């Protein structure tokens, strides 16, 4: 909710110029300090617990992260002053805590844990997010590139299958090797897919929802409208089969089904989509031995034969369970557990490592922080006025929730364990960078959602130019090519997000498929 629209009674004098009264984002600043204090506190405790001193590079990390937080905060103040104030501190909290955990694992001599590298990627990711916020002034620009983005996403997904470029790690072919770095293209592809779906669905949702035949009471889309969607479905199946990665496949497919539902409001399609995935997964289970192994260790992880199996056994998940059980209600404390015994405790299994050191209390807190980020993202989707923005923000928030569900659900045995990473916590450059880009986009959209428009005056209310189109979302389309005067006019006539009644009476331009 905009502060301004709350403070000032409706219809007061002339239109208000929001820029002159941009909020100071004091709440965000305070929360950032709290988040950093928690993270640095953890880092210090790790050092004292393991070696009775501050960990190496403690002050570097403090300095770098504080500087980055300050930078991000200032960038937001300048370029997205109305953006949600909780998202950045929440993400910062998760990121600094993961730095403390990875430092702890590295101090315990765990191979592969590299706090320095994690800090480097964190810095790069935040920098990229800031640049994105500076460059991308309006998220609607992205809509222009709907099909370019689709092609790019497909290329990214296919990359790991190219010989020499693709790398198979732990049975899954989801990495590519670029200049000595292992990257997971799927992490970036999920953003591109969200952009593509948003652009495609906002243009075609009416045809999709209404133009088809009715079968058994269920409205089916026409086949020609379904083309791009089928392409994506094929891609997600290909990921499952070719790259042996159930998690990524589930992520893409869930994203697609979720956004299709958002756009078309057809619950039946969700059911169809989910059954299609179940069928695909079942077929994969009957055909592929590695999928069968995953299911087997999901059902009976404590089976001694499965624990001892050298490849594809349940050792990893069982160690995670042992670690979490050891943590119990309140955890062993920072640096006090044996989390370095959990395989991949710094990446795929970092959730279990937190469970061991911070206990159930810590994990529930972490889940709540994630929930806050996701709900703020959905909140931005509800608040923003254009259909593309709604779909994009909704999709990005949902894909983060879905990724969390797949990762944490895998570790806590709700679903079979897959190779996805915990956003902002797991060590790994692609995941960090991609998720910070998601955050930048959500912040950008939430800024648009919460930016107060000029309040209509009495005179405007008296003469409503009623030319609203079929779209109920009432977005004001300002294309990138629009003149400055157009933009100003659009801003003047933007409805207040807090007042839906007002929304009905302001001039609305059709948001139909004019760009599709």
């Amino acid at each position, binding site marked *: 909710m905009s502060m301004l629209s709350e403070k000032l009674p409706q219809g007061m004098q002339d239109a208000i110029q929001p820029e002159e009264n941009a909020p100071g984002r004091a709440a965000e600043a305070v929360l950032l300090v709290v988040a950093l204090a928690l993270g640095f506190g953890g880092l210090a405790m790790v050092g004292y617990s393991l070696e009775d001193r501050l960990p190496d590079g403690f002050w570097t990390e403090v300095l770098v992260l504080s500087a980055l937080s300050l930078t991000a905060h200032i960038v937001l103040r300048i370029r997205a002053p109305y953006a949600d104030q909780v998202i950045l501190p929440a993400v910062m909290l998760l990121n600094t805590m993961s730095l403390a955990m990875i430092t702890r694992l590295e101090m315990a001599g765990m191979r592969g844990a590299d706090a320095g590298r994690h800090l480097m990627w964190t810095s790069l990711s935040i920098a990229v997010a800031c640049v994105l916020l500076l460059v991308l002034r309006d998220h609607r620009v992205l809509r222009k590139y709907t099909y370019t983005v689709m092609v790019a996403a497909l290329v990214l997904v296919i990359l790991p299958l190219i010989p020499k470029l693709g790398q198979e790690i732990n049975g899954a072919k989801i990495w590519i090797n670029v200049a000595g770095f292992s990257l997971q293209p799927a992490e970036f592809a999920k953003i591109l897919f969200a952009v593509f779906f948003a652009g495609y669905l906002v243009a075609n949702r009416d045809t999709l929802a209404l133009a088809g035949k009715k079968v058994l009471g269920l409205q089916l889309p026409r086949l020609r409208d379904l083309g791009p969607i089928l392409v994506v479905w094929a891609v997600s199946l290909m990921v499952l089969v070719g790259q042996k990665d159930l998690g990524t496949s589930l992520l893409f497919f869930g994203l697609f089904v979720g956004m299709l539902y958002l*756009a078309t409001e057809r619950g039946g399609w969700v059911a169809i989509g989910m059954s299609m995935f179940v069928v695909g997964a079942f077929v994969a289970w009957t055909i592929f031995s590695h999928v069968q192994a995953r299911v087997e260790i999901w059902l009976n992880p404590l089976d001694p034969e499965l624990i001892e199996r050298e490849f594809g056994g349940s050792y990893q998940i069982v160690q995670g369970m042992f670690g979490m*059980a050891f943590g119990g209600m309140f955890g062993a404390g920072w640096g006090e557990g044996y989390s370095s015994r959990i395989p991949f405790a710094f990446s795929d299994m970092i959730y279990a490592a937190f469970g061991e050191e911070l206990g159930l209390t810590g994990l529930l807190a972490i889940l709540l922080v994630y929930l806050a980020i996701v709900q703020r993202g959905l909140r931005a989707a509800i608040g923003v006025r254009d259909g593309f923005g709604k779909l994009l923000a909704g999709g990005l928030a949902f894909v983060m929730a879905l990724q969390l569900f797949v990762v944490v659900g895998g570790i806590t045995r709700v679903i079979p364990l897959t190779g996805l990473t915990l956003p902002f916590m797991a060590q790994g450059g692609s995941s960090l960078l991609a998720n910070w880009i998601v955050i930048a986009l959500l912040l950008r959209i939430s800024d648009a959602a919460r930016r107060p428009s000029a309040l209509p005056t009495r005179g405007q209310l008296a003469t409503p130019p009623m030319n609203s189109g079929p779209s109920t979302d009432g977005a004001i389309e300002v294309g990138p090519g629009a003149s400055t005067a157009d933009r100003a006019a659009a801003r003047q006539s933007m409805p207040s997000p807090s007042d839906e009644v007002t929304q009905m009476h302001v001039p609305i331009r059709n948001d139909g498929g004019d760009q599709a």
Partner: protein
Amino acid sequence: MNTTLRRLSTVVMAMFLVLMVSTTWIQFVQAGELNDNGRNVRKIYRDLGAARGPIVVGEDNVVVSVPIDDAYGRQRVYADGSEDLAKLYAPITGFFAVNGNTAGLERSANDYLSGRADSLWLDQLQNLLTGQEAEGSSVDTTIDPKIQQAAWDALGNYTGAAVALDPRTGAILAMVSKPSYDPNSLAVHSSGEVNETYQGLANTKPQINTDDGSEQFSPYSVLTNRAIDATYPPGSTFKVFTSAAAIESGDFTPDSEVPSPNGYELTNTGTTINNFGGYDCVAGKTKITLADAMRTSCNSSYLWLGGQIGKEGMTDMFKAFRFDESLEVPMGTVAGSYPGLDNTNPDSVDRIELSGMGQGDVKLTPLQVAMMSATVANGGTEMKPYLIKSIRDSELEVVEKTNPSTLANPISSSTADALTGMMIGVVENGSGQNAQIPGVSVAGKTGTAENGGHRQPTLWFTGFAPTDDPQVAIAVVLENGGNSTVDTASGTLAAPIAKKILEAAIG
């Protein structure tokens, strides 16, 4: 789209709820089970690294944790690293290995040693408030180092065990198992080395004597505490038990006459069991008193008695002594076995008759045999054996003390008195004369149990002293210690060992 967004928001909430429940399930509901899982080494890591309390024998800390500079932070040291002393106490202390194997008090008193027992809550609360590192408690044992050492020395190179109890309280004064092992070799901080050593010890089974020179090995490794974890046929020591059942039935007194033929044919089998050495029990007599039957360890009389008391009477007495149960001293002891009692061993009349002389599928641990003597010594009241005298917290304050408790009352005091008289006869004028101590009245019973398969017999002695004011009850077993060249082997070999232990306890 706002409607669908709100619905999606609800779906997201539900997804998070599932994750919260599943996380709680593992960390709270399932946690105990997972922590106790045999493959979970976290507990061991924590317990090894913690300031684990000492195990105290007499005035000495025989097991301590000393700080060292490695990943664990502390090293467990047994008997100051002295191999001989560490072996002496190994059946009591056990060991605490990095690979997850534990034994003895290190295992069964772990909650105290690691400072996590519920009775230490005040200590725990203090540590929580002051931020001090939790310290384990010290476990004071009932072992008397003098008796323990005497029993160890007296057993010499035999494979076997010795147990000494205070019959009035049940306190275990000595518990020796031979051959033993050095727990220090299992306390090293290298899983690989520990695994190798452990496997080596677990496979080291002492060779046993045979009458045809064939190479045979004990079923028990050196890691087995033969005093409580091994069962043997009690042989003639079980005649105390059979006599107890006979007298308790009301049909017999020590003066009752029982048949004593030289050779007794087991009912419905055609198999004849001879008396020891093939002699009349009392020369020229085919009927002798029960007391004489005990004194001379007369097989034929007890085979007959076993049949007379019958399966029900024998089984009832076995249960009355709680020999069919496993006890916690606090180490878990193995239960004894009797034909047909919770097992599939045949329980026909001939098997019951055989059990009358402690053969044929009746098996007891040395601790149980000692408890039998202790019950007689204590006027028929069987005390619960225990090894922990008290628990002291890190400030050396006693937080828990074991109060002696009655385990059972299997026989009346008059039966106990009668048995005492009969057992005195064994030592004064029977098969156990080698256990006589000048100036002290000793009650006892020898035992020579056949094992079959060319294995030499298992030799026993059990008894107590002084008879007017019993201070100690013992059992000595020499596993297949018999030697065909020596007659009345248990009297010759086991009784002198028992004598030395009794002397150490009384002297």
